[in-house]
């Protein structure tokens, strides 16, 4: 794994009125790593993704993508710069065919790999079907395809395995691992499914009440008593 950082974020903060959802979080993603961002509900994981991607008003913090400051860019411009994200809820276009929507996403990317993404994600059999007519598991893959197309530099995935069976989740984790290595992607993954997190991530960051509780390898995090107490419980310790 290369040691050059792909993404450096400093002092990420988000306030909602008097409530501070994210309190000066610093995150550095090394090129090619798969980082897991975990924490209980309300820990600030999705908010962290929002601030990184420039979603919403009053965002505080500095974000550098491969050494370029993108803090002042809109979410649209950040996507074009190579910072892509998926959303917690399936966020696709039900009235477009699978191919139409992936191609639509590709038109705004620097690199058009529509057919490659459809093929790698196993979506070819559904390519000409309306996305609203395919199964939920396939819709999640379409969601991922929209994020992956154009080979972004950094991929932020918000619970990509939500609603999937254990088998589907692990299959997704294997596919992510393979794609990250093949396409040299840097990935930050928010996920509640610890099977997925421990099977795919190189490094974990644990958020608790808007602050970083700890960071480290999956083994180190799993055995950290504070993490066990605040989030994991005894199941994964």
């Amino acid at each position, binding site marked *: 794994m290369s040691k050059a950082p792909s993404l450096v974020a400093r002092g990420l903060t988000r306030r909602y009125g008097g409530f501070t959802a994210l309190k000066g979080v610093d995150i550095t993603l090394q090129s090619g790593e798969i980082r897991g961002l975990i924490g209980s509900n309300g820990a600030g994981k999705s908010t962290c993704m929002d601030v990184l991607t420039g979603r919403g008003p009053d965002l505080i913090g500095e974000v550098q993508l491969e050494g370029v400051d993108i803090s002042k860019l809109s979410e*649209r411009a950040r996507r074009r710069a190579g910072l892509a994200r998926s959303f917690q809820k399936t966020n696709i276009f039900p009235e477009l065919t699978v*191919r139409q929507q992936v191609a639509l996403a590709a038109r705004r990317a620097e690199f058009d790999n529509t057919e490659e993404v459809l093929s790698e994600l196993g979506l070819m059999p559904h390519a000409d*079907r309306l996305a609203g007519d395919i199964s939920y598991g396939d819709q999640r893959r379409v969601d991922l395809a929209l994020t992956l197309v154009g080979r972004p530099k950094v991929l932020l995935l918000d619970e990509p395995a939500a609603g999937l069976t254990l088998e589907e989740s692990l299959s997704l984790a294997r596919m992510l691992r393979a794609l990250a290595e093949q396409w040299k992607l840097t990935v930050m993954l928010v996920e509640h499914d610890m099977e997925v997190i421990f099977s795919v991530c190189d490094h974990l960051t644990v958020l608790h009440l808007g602050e970083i509780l700890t960071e480290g390898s999956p083994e180190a995090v799993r055995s950290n008593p504070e993490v066990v107490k605040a989030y994991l419980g005894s199941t994964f310790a």
Partner: protein
Amino acid sequence: MSTPAAMAISAPTQKKTAAPLIVAAVVAAIGFALPSLGVPMTTLSLLAQASIVGVLATAVGFLVRQSGFVSFGHAAFYGGSAYLIALLAAHSKLSAEIILIAAPIIVLVAGFALAFIMLRTSGVAYSMLSLAAAQACFELMMKWRSIANGEDGLAIKLPREVFGLPLSIFQRPDSMFMVSWAVLVVIVVCLWFLSRSHFGTLTLAIKNNEERVRFLGYETLLPRAIIIALSAFIAAIGGVLFALYNGFVTPMALHWSLSGEALVIAIIGGTRAAWGPALGAFIFIFLRDIAGNNTTHWQGIVGITLIVVTVLLPNGISGALVTLWNRARGVSNV
């Protein structure tokens, strides 16, 4: 330059383009042949009315399909266009041809400007704002007697020849059906191609999930405004046909009931296909005529039809026909 992505968008659709275009060409040809097939003048009059109302309904259906907005005020663009022709013909020295071309263009520009106000709302609020804006136009024409002659309306004073053709061409049912049918066919074909273009895909995506489209790196406000403006423009073209055919305009051409009728027609015909609202217009006009000849309660029959279509055919009659067509060809609904 055609990118691989653009080709990916068009490639599967190209295969499916030929058969629908052949069917469209046959239907269009049948329409053009009707006046020479001895069809009675009363029927041709209904066909001319249906074609003109079909243009208005197509505008409403296009807006629903590409943006999800349900307009209760499209009569403002339709009647507004007719009033513009009447007023410019009476008070300006412009030629009739320029007036007839300028009226829908003025409505297009007004629709584009109005879109930026309308787009601050969505859903029911959009529908209510469109209703309010159209009713304001209706009231203005009702009350402004010195200019618009109030509820008595205005005669549209056009010269004996327009675009080198005798004005009577536009006022006889047989020839006007040919003109309005040609306009309707051109509009539907243009919208069909638009729906298969990148812009059509983009606007459908915005309708489905605007935030995700923004995050893919697209601007969303301008495409939505363009859809509203184009829809207004199509409705205004309907207004031009109405003005030519009737030679007279009253505030009823701006009334909400006409907007509602266009929406009912679009729902009956179905909005998922570009040609659905046009089909709905022919069904509606003939159903109303047949029901009106047999009972004074024709609105009840139209109402029952609307309920039946809404419950049994949620994609309208065109949606049902497309499903049957796809089944016959052994393909899924796309």
